[in-house]
Structure formats: C-alpha cells, structure tokens
C-alpha cells in the first residue's frame, strides 16, 4: 500500500488528505455504508412482500380443502313401509339414513359403537333427504342410492387433515387369531412385531409385556376380511409374539393367515391426540375402499346459510347480507358524497363554514371505524329505534364511514378538470349549474367512480362498526330484504374464526378467499376504469 502511494507521488500528484490511505479506507467505508443502506431498503421491500406471500399462502392452503366435501352413498330404503307418501312431513328421515348406515355394518352392536357410527354422517342428512324427496317424489317406493354429506371430523379425516395414516404393509410372518370377534389373541410367527411396537411408543411392563395405550400409535392388523386393533403384546414361546387385540371388523374365520396375507396399518397420530377414533377410521377406510365415498364440489358451502355444524355451514347468507349492505351504502354515500364534493369544489364560497366542512371531512376520514359503530348504536338503534342486525342500518353506518373517502376522491377528480372547460361553457351562456352538470361532472366521472369503488371495497372489508350494531348475531336464514336480520362476510369470518370446531378453520379461510376475490374484482374494475377513461389534461 505504502509503495503504491509513493509511486503515485513519484508521478507528480502530491499525497493529500483526499488520496492517502486513510482517505481510501474512508471512501471504502462510505461505499460500504452505501451498499448496506441500499440493501436495507431492498430488504424492507422484500420483507413486506414476504409478509404478503406468507399471509396469502397460509390462507390459500387452508382454504383449498374446504372447496370439496365428501359424500357417503348409502342404499336408503324409501319403501312405503318406511316412508308413508301421504305423511311426508312426519317421517324421521335421519333415522332412515342411520338405519341404512347401521345395515352396512351389521356387526356394530354395542350402544356406544352405534352412536359412534351414526356420528359419521352429518346431522343435516334428514333435512337434505326430505328436501330431495319433496323435489323428486319418484325416489319413493323402493331403495335408492343416496349420497349424504359426512360429518366434519370424518370429512377432515378423509381429506388427510386429522390423522397420519401409513399405507398397509404386508406382515412377513403368519398370524393366527383365537376368535373372530370380541377381544382376541393373535399369535405372530416371529417377534418382529415387538420391536415395531416398541418404536411406536408402547409402554414396557413386566416380563416383556408391551401395552399400547391411547398415547401410542395405533397398530391395526388387517386379515381374513377383518381388522384387529392391537392393545398389548408379549413374547410368546420359541421366538413368536403374542398380541391381545380388539376386533373392529369381524374376521371371516380363525384360519391362520400365511406370511404376506396379513397387513399392518399404522396410524401415527396417537388416538388420544386426534379427534377421531380408530373405529371410525376403520369404518371410513372400509367405506372408501368399497367406493361408497365420493369427494364433490362443496355446494353446501357456497349456497347455504350459516350453521353451527361445520359441514353444513355456508357463506351464501353472508354474501347476500354483504350485498344488501353494500347497496344501501352505495345508495347513500355516492349521491351525498358526489354532491358534497361538487358543492365544495364548484359552488362554495371561501368562508368559515366551508373551511369547517373541509377540516371536518379530513378529520372524519381518520376517525377509527369502531367509533362509527358507536354512533350507529347510539343514534340509529337507540335514538331512532331502527332494527338490530339489519343491512339498512349497517349500510347507513358504512355510508357515513365511506363518505369522506368518496368526497376526497371526487374533489380531486373535479379539481383535475381544467378551468378552460368551465370557462368555455360559461362563455356560451350556460348557467353555473349547467356548466357543472353538463360538462365538468361527466369529465370527472371516471375518477369519481374509481374513488367510489375503492371506498366501497374498503367498506366491504370493514367489520368493527358492524359488530356494534348487532350484525354479529347468529343468523341461519338467507336475508330477503333490507330490514331482515343479516350478517356480512367479514363478520361471518370473525365468527367462524372463533368457533372451536376444527372444520371451521378451513371454512374461515375459504370465506376469506371469497372476500378477497370480491375485493380483487372491485379493485380490478377501478384500475380498468382509471386506465380506460381517465384523461390527463
């Protein structure tokens, strides 16, 4: 380094404080800071992008399973003995569907197991059946194959979200059962099963006894047309292993299964830490392998109202509620907002009142939305006695909230119309009102529309003020008018997010996806309007 500088000096440039070693180090440091600063900025932008990707990907991956629903096809006996065509309203349709399911599993006899089995199909089955029979009386009179929605836990299991189930692996030794049903003993040809059970969290007891509690993985042995769940294992005589098990599906015979004829199915998630029992899993797997379970597009979710049962819950009621609310908001906020903007921009004299109005509008735009909810509660509900939970009140509250946004956007748009347009119109004898309504307003309209759509998109996603006016009520019916009790999409999301059932988590994400879809459409329209019609003067 010193050499290099002195050689510089030799050429004739004196070494100064701008070129000496310290200066070079300083410069290097400054450039390093420069790069560092630049990357810090890029990092901030990237971080914001990362947050967005994380947020959207979380929601999309959670929402996808909710778009489909599993249906179980059952042969349902609708003969005159079961369903009297004259008394369709008095029939217990749920019981008919449950009988069909019970007939499918004849060896499920205990009261507890029967109840478990009934729980596999949705509690709304009877309602669907009744509706379909009313729509198509031709179903009556015989046995029909009818698809019923499965319960939410069964549905989640079938979608692979509730338990990790390994594939069936052949057991490379013989298996001999002692009985075909009840609690039985199984004798395995070798002791490989013992090591396997140990690896799956079995509890060690005396004399090499291994107990498979509900905290361990479930080991199911499938052979002879049945399924046995192992509960305990111990070493048998001469290198064999003996297991105690509970038969879940009855075996055909007590004949020993040869090596490779029996299969082992391991459910990794311990029974204690999942919400579906081994029995239900076995039944569902049997139904699935018999081709009785079918995954369909989830029309229940898209076209019905809310419900406490995840598999019956739909967003349509909330979508209709949102739509009604938005109509009210638009009908109030658009005319008032545009009129106010026209007055302030085109007619208003510069006086105290105008200044007060302007300051007011800017302040209103920054008032927290929940305060508008308090206003709605105190004024609309308590003072004017309007109905709770009604779209008309929600729409009015949101309109007051959106008003400043529309006024500010409309004013900007009106201001962008050049004065020459006004002067030309006034010059050929138009009145002030004619100038504004015939010339300025049409030219400002694209900008006003853009601002209005963005304001409406903002209102569509708003939740807090509507909680205040009771739109958080649990409403099953699809609202039919502006004064019917209704809920709206964001509030529905809020309510579902609070429900403890696991099935609702997917539903919530799917509802969020629908809400985001509406917002994307509205914003796209706004962008198109801006691109196509907005003129730069």
């Amino acid at each position, binding site marked *: 380094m010193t050499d290099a500088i002195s050689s510089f000096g030799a050429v004739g440039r004196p070494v100064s404080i701008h070129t000496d070693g310290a200066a070079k180090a300083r410069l290097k440091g400054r450039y390093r800071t420069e790069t560092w600063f630049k990357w810090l900025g890029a990092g901030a932008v990237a971080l914001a992008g990362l947050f967005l990707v994380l947020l959207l990907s979380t929601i999309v991956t959670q929402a996808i399973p909710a778009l489909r629903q599993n249906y179980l096809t059952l042969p349902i006996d609708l003969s005159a003995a079961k369903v009297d065509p004259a008394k369709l309203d008095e029939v217990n349709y749920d019981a008919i569907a449950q009988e069909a399911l019970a007939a499918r599993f004849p060896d499920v006899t205990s009261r507890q197991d029967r109840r478990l089995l009934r729980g596999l199909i949705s509690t709304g089955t009877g309602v669907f059946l009744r509706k379909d029979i009313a729509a198509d009386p031709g179903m009556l009179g015989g046995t029909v194959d009818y698809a019923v929605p499965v319960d939410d836990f069964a549905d989640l299991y079938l979608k692979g979200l509730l338990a990790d189930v390994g594939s069936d692996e052949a057991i490379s030794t013989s298996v001999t059962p002692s009985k075909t049903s009840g609690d039985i003993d199984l004798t395995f040809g070798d002791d490989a099963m013992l090591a396997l059970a140990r690896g799956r969290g079995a509890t060690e007891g005396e004399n090499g006894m291994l107990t498979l509690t509900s905290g361990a993985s479930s080991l199911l042995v499938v052979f002879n047309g049945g399924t046995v769940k192992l509960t305990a294992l111990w070493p048998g005589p001469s290198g064999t292993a003996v297991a105690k098990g509970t038969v879940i599906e009855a075996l055909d015979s007590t004949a020993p299964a040869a090596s490779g004829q029996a299969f082992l199915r391991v459910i990794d998630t311990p029974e204690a830490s999942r919400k579906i029992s081994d029995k239900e899993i076995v039944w569902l797997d049997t139904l699935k392998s018999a081709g009785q379970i079918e995954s369909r597009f989830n029309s229940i979710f898209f076209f019905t109202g809310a419900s406490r049962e995840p598999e019956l819950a739909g967003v349509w009621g909330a979508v209709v509620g949102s739509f009604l609310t938005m109509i009210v908001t638009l009908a109030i906020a658009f005319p008032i907002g545009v009129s106010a903007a026209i007055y302030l921009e085109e007619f208003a004299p510069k006086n105290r009142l105008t200044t007060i109005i302007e300051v007011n509008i800017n302040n209103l735009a920054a008032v927290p939305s929940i305060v508008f909810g*308090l206003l709605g509660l105190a004024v609309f509900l308590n003072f004017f006695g309007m109905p709770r939970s009604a779209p008309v009140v929600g729409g009015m509250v949101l309109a007051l909230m959106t008003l400043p946004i529309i006024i500010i956007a409309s004013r900007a748009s009106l201001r962008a119309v050049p004065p020459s347009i006004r002067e030309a119109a006034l010059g050929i004898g138009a009145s002030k009102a004619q100038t504004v309504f015939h010339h300025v307003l049409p030219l400002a309209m694209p900008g006003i529309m853009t601002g209005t759509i963005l304001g409406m998109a903002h209102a569509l996603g708003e939740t807090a003020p509507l909680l205040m006016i009771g739109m958080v009520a649990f409403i099953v019916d699809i609202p039919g008018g502006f004064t019917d009790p209704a809920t709206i999409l964001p509030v529905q999301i809020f309510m579902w997010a609070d429900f403890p059932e696991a099935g609702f988590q997917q539903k919530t994400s799917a509802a969020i996806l629908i809400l985001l879809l509406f917002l994307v459409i509205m914003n796209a329209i706004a962008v198109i309007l801006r691109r196509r019609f907005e003129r730069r003067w």
Partner: protein
Amino acid sequence: MVGYLVVLLLVLAAAAYWIGRTRAIASVNGDVARLHSLPGQHGMFLALFAAGPALLAILLWSLVTPGIESSIIADRFSSELSGMGIPQVEAFIRDARAMAFGGLVGFADPTKEAAAAVYKSVHTTSTWIIWAVALVLSASGFYWAYSRIAQAYRARHVVERVLRAFLIACSVVAILTTIGIVLSLIFESLRFFQQVPFYKFLFGTHWSPQSAFTGAGAEAGAVNQDIFGMVPLFAGTLLITLIAMLVAAPIGLMAAIYLSDYASKSVRAVAKPVLEILAGIPTVVYGFFAALTVAPYFRGIGESLGLNVASESALAAGVVMGIMIIPFVSSLSDDVINAVPQSLRDGSAGLGATKSETIRKVVLPAALPGIVSAMLLAVSRAIGETMIVVMAAGLAANLTANPLEAVTTVTVQIVTLLVGDQEFDSAKTLAAFALGLVLFCITLTLNIVALRVVQKYREQYD
C-alpha cells in the same frame, strides 16, 4: 304501504316533469327560444313541487312516528307497565310491535296481544294520515307550480336554488356526522360518569367490568366504582401500538426510501402493487392470520427458548398490526420524500455525497416534519385498529410491559362490552362509550398534532 306511496310520488314526479315541459312549450306555441327557462327546467320545477314537499313529509313521518306510536302504547297501558323498569317497557313495546307486524316473539300474554292490537290500529291511522297529507301536499304543490308556468317565469332560478340547497345539505352531512359522534359519545359518557366518577375511570388501575355490581345475585348492590379504571387498557393499547410501530416504522420508511430513490422502474412496478394489496386486505383477515398462525408460531419459538409466551401475546397482535400499517407508513413517507425538491439532491451529489449520505443528511432532515406527521397518523391508526386486537389480543386487563404476556386494549373492551344482548343503560355498556370518547379524543388529537407539525415546520423550497 308507505313504500307504495313513495313509488306513487316518484311516478307523479315523472308525470309532472312531462306535463310541465309540455305546458311550457305550449305557452309559447312551440317557439322555445321565447321562454326564459328551458322547457326541461319548467318540467323539473313542476316535478320538484309536486313530489318534493310530500317526500320530505314522508321522511319526517318515518323518523318521528316510531317514537310517537311507542309513547301512545306506553300511555294507554301505563297501569300495566307501571311496575316495570325501562328495559322491560322497551322489550314490551318491541314485542307488541313485532306481534302487530306479524313477527314472532318469545312468549305472548293477553296484555301484549292487546297492546299489539292497539299498536296495529294506531299504525293504520298514522299510515292513513301520512297518505292524506302527502297527497294533499302533492296536489297543492302541483296546482301552485302549474299555475306559475309561463313564458317569462324564471323556473331555472328556482330549480338551481333548490339544487344548491340540496348540495349544501349534502356537505353538511359530514358536519352532522361529526356532531352526531361527539354528542352521542359525550351524552352516553356523561350518563356513565354519573355512576362512576371520571377520575376513577381515568386513573384507576383495575378493570373488570364483568363484575359491575358489588355483591352478587339478589344481593347485588350499587355499581362498584373501583373496577372501571382504564389505565391497564391504555397501557395495553400503548404496548401493542409500540410493537406495531417498531415493526412498521423502520420497514415502511426504508421501503419508501428504497422505492423513491433506489428502485428501478420494474422493481417499482412490482413493489407498489404489493404494498397496495397489503393495504387493501381487510383487518379481519389480519386478525385471523394473527390468531391462527402468528400467535402459535411465537408461542412455539418461546417454548423452544424456554420462555413462557401467552397464546394471546401482545407481541403477536402487535407484529401483525405492524405489518398492516407498513403500507400506510410507506405511502405517506413516499409522498413526503418525493416532495423534497430534486435540486437538494443534486446539490448534495455535487458536493460528493453518496446517495445514502444524501438521503440521510439532506432528504430525511428536509422531509422530517412530514415523516413525523406520517408516524403520528400511523400511531393514531394503530390505536383505533379493532379487529386484529379483538381476535389476537387478550381480554384480561393486565398492567404489564412484558410483550410476551396477554394485554387488552381500549377497542377490544368496547367490542366485548357491546357485543351481545345487553341492557343498554347499565354502567357496563355505558363504559364502552366512555372508552369510545377517550379513543376519539386521542386519535383526533394525534391527527391535529400531525397536521400542525407539517404546517409549522415544513420548509418551503419552491
């Protein structure tokens, strides 16, 4: 019934427009140029007078009648209602109204049925009255305006004056909204402060309004004044806001700097929409994300580090709120940074400063008032934000500065106190309005200060 009346009046207005127009043209035998006002303006004039007063009367009627009808019912049944409190009377009248209009009520008794019958007859009478009034107003307005239409009549002036009055009325809606907010908050808060002294509310450190009365059950006594201390709520709000700003301020500011001074056009074309999307996502979605993804994640990290993180920690709510505010900070800062004239940057570059030195030593100091104002607005927004904290923050009012613990905020408490069926005049629900008043004052002050900072310290370069 009244809906038909409105439709009828609108049809009348359309007809009046046509009649007025025709009459105006006929008055000059088709020589339109001789009219003072255009035929259409005469039509508008006639339509306004035929339907306007009647529509105003209907508006007034629909605002006033529910109250009058209820008071008539309360008056007629005063002997039956004498033993009831205000909420029961309200419930009684609500049920009577529901029964009168064919709705369903929980349980009906003969008194209610009698009240419903009276209600129905009163309502029918008042509907007849409004029909009669509206039709008389409409007819007389039409007659008066029709007789006025003539060649020299200045219909345009009348129409434009009415139009201007309408425009002014629309602008005043903004003021009315503010007045409505202030009055309703103050009025309800005053009722609250009659029960709980305001110093106990403002400076108390214990908040648990769920046990609003001393004693329990039948022994419930007066309102317990010591459980409405809002200091823990305020502290919780500040803690979450602080965390949010720690996330949003550096990221938002650096993103704004990068986008305005470093980014190429193509980067900007991607990054700007990303920030706009982030800004357009509804807060309830952020809340869901905070409660179901971020909070368990932080809890998991805390567990692996041996820390005890509450499942509704202030950290999770604060961080997600920070993410929500990033685009807000960055777009405001972007405007401010772009407003610094290019000559300042050029001058700095001419002196040999690097870009980052220019930004840190010239642009940022010049833009400082604007940036401070942007941060204040962001704080005001964080304080008023509701859904994220409702879904991800706790309900229990802990007075703590530990971000790993659950805290609650002013907005969360407003929501918890007012959601669900509650008697409206208890101290508990009124407390929500007092909290709302505090919230409104804080955000208003922050906004005004933000505005003043810009006005006072902004440097005029051009």
